[in-house]
């Protein structure tokens, strides 16, 4: 009888080997040893991969220039926010949060990335990174990762959601999890023993196989406990809710910071339908977090949803928008001063646009994240400007956090 977990533990191979896998959403968590360092506030960062069209989410309906730029987009009535901006109706479920002061937006904000408008480069600048629990060559640098290095007493770990058809986070004894429900490894004990020998000198294969076997056992237990009537078919989008559930469970415990990403924002065509779908996922994620965290923890929570860049002011020829520059950030939670569209609005006149085509950035998206972390955790300004977001000028506190 071989104890595979002992094998795993004995070799200290607790890492996951999938940091850059395209089908995976990694969720990075940070907590402090002893409550002192991070206190009670929670921060959830959601990276919206693919470039969300801020102008179609928080629509400047009060500007008469908007409609001519976008003859077919924004036709469905917006929900009023502040008399000037209107909310995309796909986020109608968040409107009560706006009224309760638990939802805000930042407009005309972007990373310092300019001109090339490549998703892959743009996301790098925004990357939260993974925790240092992975083998060193798989740790992705990112702002969260840099905080972990700079602030003593913090610990972090990375979990993985599998997004083949339906993304899923699986809980179990192994600290790092990546699995799809219909995979199982059933080997004779002898074959397992032999494979462990064959993988012995190849750490990557050894770790992957050991996790596969450990997780396979968890999977069997899950199956046994699952109501057979519920097994199998779930809505595809349950994925977003499952990530939210998992993050919420951790945040109710020791975890204080969670970061993950949502995809599906690259709306070159058919934006009405496709953006609606992506916003629906974001809405469900936020509402689910709020529900699962409960009133007390939600009251100490800030959610920042940010994207690599915005999209063109003018609609393209295919009912969509192309890669642009400034966009919007979505902010939610009981710890924020909501009911407000933050940021300096640059206007839509052609001369006011970046390169006469994109919304002009008037703030650095990283500054909002830095101020949020300063407000929530009291991190030092120098730390944030030098270590976490090198080269950032934070400027004055915009008062986003209560």
């Amino acid at each position, binding site marked *: 009888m071989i104890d595979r977990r002992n094998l795993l533990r004995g070799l200290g191979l607790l890492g996951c080997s999938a940091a850059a896998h395209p089908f995976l959403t990694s969720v990075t968590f940070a907590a402090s040893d002893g409550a002192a360092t991070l206190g009670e506030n929670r921060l959830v960062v959601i990276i919206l991969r693919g470039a969300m069209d801020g102008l179609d989410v928080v629509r400047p309906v009060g500007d008469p220039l908007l409609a001519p730029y976008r003859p077919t987009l924004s036709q469905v009535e917006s929900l009023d926010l502040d008399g000037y901006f209107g909310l995309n109706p796909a986020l109608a479920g968040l409107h009560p949060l706006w009224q309760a002061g638990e939802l805000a937006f930042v407009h005309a904000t972007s990373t310092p990335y300019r001109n090339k408008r*490549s998703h892959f480069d743009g996301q790098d600048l925004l990357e939260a990174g993974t925790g240092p629990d992975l083998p060193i060559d798989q740790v992705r640098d990112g702002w969260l990762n840099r905080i972990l290095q700079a602030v003593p007493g913090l610990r972090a770990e990375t979990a993985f959601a599998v997004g*083949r058809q339906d993304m899923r986070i699986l809980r179990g004894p192994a600290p790092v999890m*990546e699995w799809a429900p219909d995979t*199982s490894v059933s080997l004779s004990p002898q074959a397992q023993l032999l*494979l462990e020998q064959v993988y012995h000198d190849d750490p990557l294969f050894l770790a992957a*196989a050991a996790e596969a076997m450990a997780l396979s056992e968890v999977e069997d237990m899950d199956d046994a406990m699952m109501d057979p009537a519920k097994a199998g078919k779930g809505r595809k989008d349950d994925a977003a809710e499952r990530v939210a559930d998992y993050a919420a469970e951790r945040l109710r415990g020791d975890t204080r910071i969670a970061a993950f990403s949502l995809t599906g924002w690259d709306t070159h065509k058919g934006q009405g339908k496709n953006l609606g779908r992506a916003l629906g996922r974001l809405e469900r994620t936020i509402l689910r977090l709020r529900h699962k965290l409960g009133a007390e923890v939600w009251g100490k929570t800030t959610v920042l949803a940010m994207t690599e860049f915005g999209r063109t002011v003018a609609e393209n020829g295919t009912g969509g928008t192309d890669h642009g520059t400034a966009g919007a950030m979505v902010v939610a939670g009981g710890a924020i001063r909501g009911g407000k569209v933050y940021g300096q609005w640059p206007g839509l006149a052609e001369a006011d646009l970046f390169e006469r085509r994109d919304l002009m950035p008037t703030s650095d998206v990283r500054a909002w994240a830095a101020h949020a972390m300063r407000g929530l955790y009291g991190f030092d300004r120098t730390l944030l400007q030098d270590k976490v977001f090198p080269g950032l000028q934070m400027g004055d506190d915009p008062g986003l956090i209560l």
Partner: protein
Amino acid sequence: MTLSPSLVAFRFGYGLPLAAGAPQTAEAMLAALAGPDTMAARFPVPSYDWVHERASDIARNKMAAKTDPTLQTRLEGVHAELKEAGMAALGASVARCVAAPDMFRERLVAFWADHFTVSAGGQDDAIFPYAFVEDAIRPHVAGHFGDMLSAVVHHPAMLRYLDQTRSVGPNSRKAKRRGGGLNENLARELMELHTLGVGASYSQADVRQLAELLTGLTYDARRGYAFDPALAEPGPETVLGKTYDGKDEAPIRAFLQDLARRPETGQHLARKLAVHFVSDDPDPAMVTAMAAAWQAADGALLPMYQAMLTHPAAHAAPAAKARQPWDFLMAALRGLGVKGEDVIAWKRDRLTAVVLQPLRAMGQNWKSPPGPDGWPEALETWITPQGLAERIGWAMRWPAELVSPLPEPKAFAEAVLGDRASPALLWAVVRAENRAEGVGIVLSSPEFNRR
């Protein structure tokens, strides 16, 4: 220069054993590439012309079919024929990989098909990416990059995949009459992914001008590929510092010729080839030599391959790359002695169970990569708990269902791994409880899954 059989088979092919008469020197590999494409003739895949006859038939008649049951029945037959053609093309692709003596050609076809990623839409469309490879990639793998680029940019599959079919010049006749506007998708990826690389010095203005230049290229099911002057933005466009003007497609062809010859393109392609074939972090000297050979040959591809095959770094580096799921399956089938004709004779559900479904489970949903940048290269993206579990599962199950009798495990290890079989593996395989597990352990081993 004679290369070791395992190097030829793992790094530049689909695995051991080598076929009788397989090229084993760099010169022989290049000569085979320059020679006839025997696999394409032996296991044919339809071209887009074949697809067009059927797709246009459906497009022309589907309205009338709503009130004409006989026509409706006939069109359902055409739908079924297209769907079947997608599966048949998958079978032919597998057959080529397992049967080819000249495996480097098949690997190069896969490389360029990934470089110019397109994906299928619905079931009727499953044949599209295969027809694309047949028309635009395969004929040019040993030719000039510029010819391949031009064939790709004019192919319906690419025009559709990167939204060019929807791009309309803002001042074109069509825009004036019925609206519509530019879509930058093809223009951007053409420079970012297909040629210059994202690090090169092009600007948003170049992307925009190129999008305008490309207007007119279009496709629809009814008429097929077309250059439609009514969609084209009038007037000259300036891209990468040069102005292109003229009638119909001429300025587009002129631009593509220039783009294909730029030194940044050579650098980008050389590095990408080196990363794919040799190492995730290739020797810069090898990349430089490859780009220089390409440049000196005015964009011909064989000299770039030659520079790679003859560079010491291509022989010395350790097996630090993963066989991607497709490569794993092809090498396993090849190693088990499955013949190309066997694959062609498989029923469709067998092809699905042995190849298509496992590819998806291993993380490579075939012909549906996550984006226009194709499949990732890094070792760690493929050797994951999930991915390895699926490989082990395949290795333990399928050999016994595919070949009878199963080979003796130790002999099998030596046949499919050559000098790469480690003592630990040879120790383990003879201790397996049965042949199926012994063979499974060989196919699950790091040696078999690394290249």
